[in-house]
């Protein structure tokens, strides 16, 4: 008899959730996901086939629409045991709305309460520190230049604060989301795999643990201080294996195996399998 387990992918827009979903599906079908093996070809796989096709063609994943709830729902065989795995492909906008509106649908509420595990996606090169004006004013001239660019990126012109919509720094938004999820879970433990996506952009000497402490110090402290109710671990993942927008890189990547070109690095810097974060979130390891 199959046990049903669900994993919720959490993250802000463009954090790599759908691309990793596509990679995981490809790996499962190709027997490249360790103990996670496809149990049957009878499940509805249209959505994951679509996103997996784009990954194989080295095309960026299409943005998941806020009001379309697609999912990966597969019957698996895990070390001889049947498992029905459900991973809703929730859009980043949906999670952004949760932070802004302080509410979520009853379906998401139920999914949060019942999930076996959670995977939090963060674009490793897209962390917005949302700096203080004072921090910038006391920086170097070079930083001043960067600050001006940053202000423009936020849609604001310095000196004009009217009608500027509040943005949140990435780490504040993520801690906010995790707190909301943890509070909904109550005493039930929260198992959280953190995936730093686009890891191919980071220096090889940097470990995911170091990245978390350096780029998201508030989140790092929060997780360390709450290690008992919130079990967490971090991986650096490049589901694409490189930059699809670079024609030369794309051509090289197209020649490689879709699963084989992906990069997955454990928190301590060791290479590991594509399924490692999912195995951990599902408590298989």
């Amino acid at each position: 008899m199959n046990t049903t387990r669900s994993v919720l992918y959490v993250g802000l827009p463009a954090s790599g959730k759908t691309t990793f979903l596509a990679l995981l599906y490809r790996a499962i079908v190709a027997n490249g996901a360790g103990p996670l093996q496809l149990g049957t070809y009878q499940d509805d796989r249209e959505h994951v086939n679509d996103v997996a096709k784009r990954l194989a063609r080295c095309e960026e994943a299409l943005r998941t629409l806020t009001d379309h709830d697609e999912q990966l729902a597969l019957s698996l065989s895990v070390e001889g045991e049947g498992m029905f795995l459900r991973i809703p492909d929730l859009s980043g906008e949906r999670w952004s709305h949760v932070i802004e509106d302080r509410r979520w649908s009853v379906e998401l509420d139920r999914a949060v309460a019942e999930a076996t595990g959670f995977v939090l996606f963060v674009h490793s090169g897209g962390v917005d520190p949302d700096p203080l004006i004072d921090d910038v004013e006391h920086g170097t001239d070079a930083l001043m230049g960067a600050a001006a660019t940053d202000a423009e990126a936020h849609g604001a012109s310095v000196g004009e604060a009217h009608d500027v919509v509040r943005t949140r720094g990435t780490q504040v938004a993520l801690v906010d989301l995790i707190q909301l999820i943890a509070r909904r879970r109550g005493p039930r433990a929260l198992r959280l795999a953190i995936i730093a996506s686009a890891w191919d952009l980071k220096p090889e000497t940097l470990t995911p643990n170091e990245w978390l402490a350096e780029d998201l110090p508030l989140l790092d402290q929060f997780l360390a201080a709450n290690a008992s109710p919130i079990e967490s671990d971090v991986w650096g993942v490049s589901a694409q294996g490189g930059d699809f927008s670079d024609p030369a890189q794309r051509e090289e990547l197209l020649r490689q195996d879709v699963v084989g070109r992906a990069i997955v690095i454990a928190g301590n810097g060791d290479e590991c399998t594509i399924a490692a974060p999912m195995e951990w979130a599902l408590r298989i390891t």
Partner: protein
Amino acid sequence: VTDAANEGATGDVAVGSNDVGADVVAEEASESMPTEVVLDSGDAALTLEEAGVLAAELGATIIVVAGAQAVGKTTMAVTLWGQFLHGAFAEFRFAGSRSLDAFDQRQFAARLSSGNAHPETRRTEDEDLRLLHLRIATPDGALADLMPSDIKGEFFEDVINGRAVVPGLQELVARADKVVVAIDGAKIASLVDRASATFEAEQLIGGLTEPGWVHPDAPVLVLLTKHDLVCELETEAWYDGEADRLVTFAQRRGLTAVSSAKVRARPIAAGFEDLLRWMHAPVHRGTTIPADEPPTIRVFAAGVMA
């Protein structure tokens, strides 16, 4: 039509959608069953009722931050929280906040993304008495919950002037584990305003130490804000003398644990390590509470204050 059907199926009420059809489906659905779950009150700080429940649940330290308008009370609390955005602070780690969005909202005007040319903190205009919440972890992993108040200065000016105070303020002050009396460094730096600033602080301490207000054993901190504006040695020396006088005055009024400190939030925050240690330090209450203690004090502590 397809979008509307999907919207209704997910149970999400027109979030992020401009589709009129989706609104209709959601409204029809909401008549029979709830479609959304409200998570919290967002950027508003905690109400007295919420704070009372939380304080009872967590054993939080309630810290009333008192002072006149624009003295820097909110900036103080937000700057303290903001230190953790860069990593562990003093010997503590950030462990959570039930008012995270409130902290973030209050800091926004000081961030580059606000578009402001100069950092600001939005004035507290809330007519309610509210508190913020900051959970910290000590090096040995113990958790501590701090709840500084975020109350507009006008309400404390009523105390300074001996006017009737807003309902709940006396009860909150009486329940407070600690009290900060904030003095505006900008006024201390002004030869014209400095005497009035410390005179107001004296009046505030006097009002807060009337029977039924601050517990005699509650630590009280006379805190100079905007210390960066106090530049001249003569001014600093004058203020130090006044701070000593205010501490002595508070002790004469029956308070057993009075001290003074200075902080500056800008341009680079300073003095907040000691402030956080003061907030975190355990409170020893040996003094018997007067028999005529207002009953609402106990009600607040039990977490059911209306």
